[in-house]
């Protein structure tokens, strides 16, 4: 079990708080006989923040599991469909210790487990393994890559010439949409909003400027200044919950709230594999706490010695929940939908 780092804020004491700087291998013993080396590598990449972003983490996870399946051999007197699922369990809990699983990863694992348990016992091992690997490839291709293409196409209809689009942080999907729209000849400019401590907006800015898109860069404290000139807000999502709430990088709900005050429509882009059956009305119940040291930018001073001060707590939240009333529409690979349609999509997709 990995230890928490530093004292936590009371309201979030049910969540884990891990340190980024301290190497994972020092904190817990990872027996290589129990955990596959591809998974160990993945866990270390997650915990140090080398692999970031909903889609990236999910694809990396599936590739690691593909390797696991390749190296797997059914022990005698066991069935592949049951044993493999049991083998994946400790890997998943190990990855959870490195960094709490994202909703996209959780859904992908659910689909994979369903596929594994659904394998007929009459299938030969080699065939079954090939089928699983093909399933993983198909999942990544259809629900992540092709979905992104479809979403980009629908989004193009919503981006008009001379639009001023506000984006927040760095979402792979939003990046792709803007680059595709620019390639198709749409004339627009982008305002990139960024926030500490991650400063992910810089990555987005770099990619957009490289494409030749006209960009402005502001910090989140300045949004009330820029919003009067914005025509629409384009946001990515980490997950879409069953009541229509959008879980995304912390700061998203603030932007959505401000946009509503200025009557600017908020568009969220999300693939359907990120739709969850969970319901969340606030940002406390289920969230992630990041390394609090990242908030203390200075080497000395009050913040640097925060652990010694009992009256001071640092809170570095990763996600927040935006209520569905603030979002005008969600663009998925099925087309543009209102936020309230998430349970319908889940129902339709589960039937398939």
């Amino acid at each position: 079990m990995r230890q928490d780092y530093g004292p936590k804020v009371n309201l979030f004491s049910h969540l884990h708080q891990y340190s980024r700087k301290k190497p994972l291998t020092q904190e817990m013993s990872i027996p290589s006989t129990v955990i596959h080396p591809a998974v160990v590598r993945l866990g270390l990449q997650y915990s140090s923040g080398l692999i970031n972003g909903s889609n990236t983490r999910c694809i990396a996870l599936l590739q690691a599991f593909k390797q696991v399946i390749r190296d797997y051999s059914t022990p005698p007197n066991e069935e592949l469909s049951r044993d493999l699922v049991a083998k994946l369990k400790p890997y998943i809990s190990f990855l959870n210790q490195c960094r709490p699983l994202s909703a996209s990863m959780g859904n992908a694992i659910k689909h994979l487990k369903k596929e594994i348990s659904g394998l007929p016992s009459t299938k030969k091992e080699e065939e079954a393994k090939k089928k699983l690997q093909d399933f993983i490839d198909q999942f990544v291709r259809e629900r992540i890559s092709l979905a992104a293409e479809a979403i980009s196409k629908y989004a193009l209809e919503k981006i008009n010439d001379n639009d001023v689009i506000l984006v927040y942080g760095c979402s792979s999907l939003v990046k792709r949409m803007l680059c595709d729209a620019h390639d198709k000849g749409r004339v627009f400019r982008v305002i990139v909003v960024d926030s500490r401590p991650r400063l992910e907006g810089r990555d987005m800015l770099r990619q957009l400027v490289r494409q030749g898109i006209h960009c402005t860069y502001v910090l989140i404290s300045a949004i009330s200044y820029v919003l009067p000139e914005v025509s629409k807000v384009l946001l990515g999502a980490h997950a879409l919950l069953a009541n229509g709430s959008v879980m995304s990088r912390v700061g998203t709900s603030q932007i959505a709230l401000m946009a509503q005050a200025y009557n600017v429509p908020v568009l969220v882009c999300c693939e359907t594999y990120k739709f969850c059956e969970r319901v969340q009305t606030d940002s406390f119940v289920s969230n992630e706490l990041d390394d609090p040291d990242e908030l203390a930018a200075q080497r000395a001073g009050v913040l640097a010695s925060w652990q010694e001060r009992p009256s001071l707590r640092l809170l570095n939240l990763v996600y927040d929940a935006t209520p569905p009333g603030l979002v005008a529409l969600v663009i998925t690979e099925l087309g543009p939908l209102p936020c309230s349609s998430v349970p319908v999509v889940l129902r339709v997709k589960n039937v398939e």
Partner: protein
Amino acid sequence: MRGAMDRAALIEAFKAQTRDDPDLASAVAAIRALLEFLKRDTEETMQGFRANLKNAIEMLSGVDSSVAVSSGGELFLRFISLTSLEYTDYSKCKEIMIERGEIFLRRISLSRNKIAKLCHPFIKDGARILTHAYSRVVLRVLEAAAESKKRFRVYVTESQPDQAGQKMAKALSKLNIPVTVILDAAVGYIMEKVDLVIVGAEGVVENGGIINKIGTNQMAVCTKAQNKPFYVVAESFKFVRLFPLNQQDVPDKFKYKADTLKTSQNLAEEHPWIDYTSPSLITLLFTDLGVLTPSAVSDELIKLYL
């Protein structure tokens, strides 16, 4: 490739339908004309037929640019196209398509009565109702309420520039319903006196918002400000796959009459005939699929189209 029914004949069939029965919804007239077109079409392949049908729908939109004609046409196309997946023999396919077309037409002709039956219980005895412009569905609803021996009075806006409200008032007084015509500008003034607002719709968009005669949005905003219920009555063939974010986002081809679109130099100088009302301002929608909240409209559309 010329179909057996050429452009002029199709448009004449469409206009004849509206002439013979002025009470007919424009979408129903369009679908009847399309069914005639289907019967007389001489295409041998599914592809050719679909292309012809799509052209026909576009031609009809060129005559009557309303949202309902466009959405009705699309739904008809989809409804009969599903047949092509089941039967590979084209002539058998065509027979089934015509049969299904007739069934579809029959179903939607009954929709107005279904809606009236669902909606009139919401009109209580002694109610004061506000409505906008001329809507045949609202007329049918009020007729049903009057038939069930309820006493109510109606305020209807004059609805410039074509004074459609006067037409509505005349029809209502023929039914012996007390009616008052008010200025479009008097909606804010009269709102405190009314108990509920009922309007029709030319199109219902994906998020549950509606596209209707200009002035509807203003009425909805005033209704919300005074906390009165805002009801919309619309048949299900008016559900359209549009998702406007604001007034600008509504396509120009719906905003202006068909002739204006063809002849105008600068559309920005023309007055739009319709506006978009956002779903947050709508309380309930009465359709032949049932009584829906705005968020349920998207569910129904997903069922129809996905």
